[in-house]
């Protein structure tokens, strides 16, 4: 009886150990991973928690700030010769493209890109769009007007009523600026008119949301998920997809060439692009890159969002000139 029990226990333990070894081998990744990201605080910690669940052996350290600030920190580290980050998860592809040109990114040819839209990841597999974040117009529910298009914001009704994120802080706003200034229907004229209407540029999308929800500025240029997440929690905020189309960013994930832990970095990219990672993004209110996992709950059933096409390489070219011009125009 006792021998049986011992034998059974041994078998169970043996199986358990074999299983553990197998999972460890399958996951493999361990050690420390440094992530630089522009995700909002809560989303970043949820993303890391999700990743750690799938890769318990990896210790993740996070630096979070606006995309431009993350890029600034990276550039400082490059010039000192000691980049700390292993993986990046930042708002826009233009920043990634700039890093790629400088030879900073590590290609991951075996990344699972099946089911992703062809334009959403780099053809050389150095960075991969993880979601779709569009920029539209957030409206305080007590506001008088209901803008339908970007052009509506130029009207005198909106004088002194508009807040927008500064492209000097937000990567999504930088893409918006690059995309919209290149269009004949909007162009720099649009931003000059907004300035003439006393629109203000605040630091990031979070600050825009605060201003709109508070009613300090009833209208705001804002990313979709923030508006809808706030609305879901009861904030008096609505969101409009403008008629001309919505500039969008893909929040790409990429591995730095100088990574100290390529295995863990690849595991992170795997997780972000996996069904689990994509579902997590959708549950946090983002439109996932992999459409098959389903849309976030706020997503209007059956509608198609009209995305403004962005010429990434042109935006990379003009980005620093754009930022300077914007800074001169809006003072920040």
């Amino acid at each position: 009886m006792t021998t049986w029990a011992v034998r059974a226990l041994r078998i169970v333990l043996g199986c358990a150990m074999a299983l553990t070894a197998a999972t460890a081998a399958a996951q493999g990744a361990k050690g420390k991973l440094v992530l630089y990201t522009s995700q909002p605080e809560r989303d970043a910690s949820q993303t890391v928690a999700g990743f750690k669940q799938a890769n318990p052996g990896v210790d993740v350290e996070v630096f979070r700030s606006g995309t431009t600030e993350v890029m600034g920190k990276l550039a400082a580290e490059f010039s000192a010769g000691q980049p700390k980050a292993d993986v990046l998860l930042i708002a826009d592809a233009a920043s990634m493209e700039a890093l790629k040109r400088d030879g900073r990114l590590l290609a991951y040819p075996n990344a699972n890109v099946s089911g992703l839209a062809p334009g959403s990841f780099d053809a050389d597999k150095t960075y991969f769009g993880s979601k779709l974040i569009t920029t539209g117009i957030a409206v305080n529910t007590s506001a008088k007007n209901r803008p339908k298009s970007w052009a509506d914001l130029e009207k005198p009704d909106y004088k002194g009523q508009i807040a927008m994120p500064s492209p000097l802080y937000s990567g999504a706003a930088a893409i918006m600026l690059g995309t919209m200034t290149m269009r004949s229907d909007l162009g720099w004229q649009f931003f000059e008119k907004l300035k003439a209407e006393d629109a203000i540029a605040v630091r990031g999308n979070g600050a825009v949301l605060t201003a709109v929800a508070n009613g300090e500025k009833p209208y705001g240029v804002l990313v979709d998920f923030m508006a809808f997440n706030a609305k879901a929690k009861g904030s008096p905020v609505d969101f409009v997809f403008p008629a001309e189309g919505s500039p969008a960013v893909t929040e790409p994930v990429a591995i730095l060439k100088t990574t100290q832990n390529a295995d863990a970095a690849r595991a992170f990219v795997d997780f972000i692009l996996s069904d689990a990672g994509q579902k997590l993004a959708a549950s946090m209110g983002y439109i996932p890159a992999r459409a098959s996992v389903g849309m976030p709950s706020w997503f209007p059933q059956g509608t198609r969002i009209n995305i403004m096409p962005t010429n990434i390489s042109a935006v990379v070219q003009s980005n620093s000139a754009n930022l300077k011009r914007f800074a001169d125009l809006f003072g920040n």
Partner: protein
Amino acid sequence: MAQRSGEQIEERALLWALVLAAMLLSLLPLLRLLLEAVAPGGTLSGRAFESVLRNPATWTATGHSIVTAFGGTLLATVIGVAVGLVVALTDVRARSAYVFLFVLPLLLAPQVVALAWLQLFGPSSTLLKMIGMAPALGSRNPLYSPTGIVLLLGVQYAPLVFLTLRAGLRTLPNELVEAALAGGARPFTVLRTIVLPLMTPPLVAGIALCFVSCLGNFGIPAFLGIPGGYLVLPTLIYQRLAGLGPSVLSDVAVLSMLIGVIAVTGLALQDVMLGRRDFRIVTTSTTPRTWHLRRWRLPVEIALWSLSVLVLVVPLAALLLTSLVPAIGVALTAASATLDNYRFVLFEHAAARRAFRNSFGLSIAAALLIAALAVPLAYFMVWRRTRLLRWLNLIAELPYALPGVVLAIAAILLFLKPLPVIGVTIYNTVWIILFGYLARFLVLGLRPVVSGYHQLDRTLEEAAQIAGARLLRRLRTVILPLVAPAAAAGALLIFLTAFNELTISALLWSSGSETLGVTVFSFQQGGDTPYAAALAMLTVVVSVSLMLATMLVAGRLPRGVLPWRD
């Protein structure tokens, strides 16, 4: 003879150790920045100077900085002096409670103060809605203006002037006052001709500290100035740096030197003012005379308490209300009020818990280390008049006068690569933040001690010296007890400032070394104002509890150790 030279070696060693430590903290980061300014990227060039000095934005921001710093200092001085005189010299009641309340704003991070005041006045202000006075949707918050910045700077730093003045008033010689009164002088004449002139050293020190604080303040002009496009030098630097990256590091180094020049000018003025006359006081009395206000007592008390309710209680109430709403803009009712924000920051958000631990550790370490450094350093500066150190005194002001972002960038440049010789990297650890705190807050600990030495007579120490006590022994047994109240006041100021510090840690933090300021700021920037408000409220609760806790042991401490204790 042998003893003499042994003492000399001991003094030399101590002096050089102090010089080395002070240089490492103050001069090294500045030199690194200077190098960046004159030799951008390593090659000598005047390009950075030229591009910055030719840019009109530089001079606009410089003008704004001077206006707001002067305005804030003036307001803080008026409030600080008025409250200081009344509280220290008259017979108003409930002084302990009042001092506690009045000093409290100094504990709150500037960004928390700004956040609280913004909650108070915005169109969604719960408080104003309750009394039907909320401004219309889209109306500009009146605080988004230079006046708003001056107002909050004044409120924030008035306790600094108050604290240094009150410490000085404790040594006010009663003999002189009694003599004047016996000679028939009226109270206001005594105030004008005896009290205020004698209080020049602490007043000038307090005002100088207040001026550099206003000049280098980042949180208030960031919250109130940036939305209205009203940039001061620190916010201009931060925006350039954050927006355009280290490519503008050289420009930013030049800008920061501009702030340094303004600060040093102000401080040099202070030295000139104090250098002309001898303000040393010899007195045997320990408690200043109490003036009886008689029928003016109640009106004065009402004025005092209204001031504190207005500048502290009301904004904090607004912050508390914001921390209870489920999302921004939701009307607060009995049904909608929630503790979810507190639950999240306390139990669900690991970083917030770490932030409490880190901020505690960093503030305590910075306060103790600086106090240990300041006592011997100020001794050489003031009593021994070591020329080298007096010059170093000005240098030590700079890391505090400069905006924290600049010191942070200097620290990144210094510490990104492993330390020479020992090969350890402190970048991305809490140690780099500790370095930043030590460098930046050294002057906070040094100033009260320096002013303490200025007011103390050296005869006791000289007597000990003649009796044969060596310097280290004199420091321990004679000097330390004399300056302990000043040193403790400095250490507490450092703790209070460091506990909610944001500007340095904003650029130096990494996962695992988050500070409370960073976590509050991250929430706020991500649009999670209710989380930010909840965490800010918790820091307020912790700070106040700590202050109350120190009151329990107050009886064992020398008088003047606890700034908030009457």
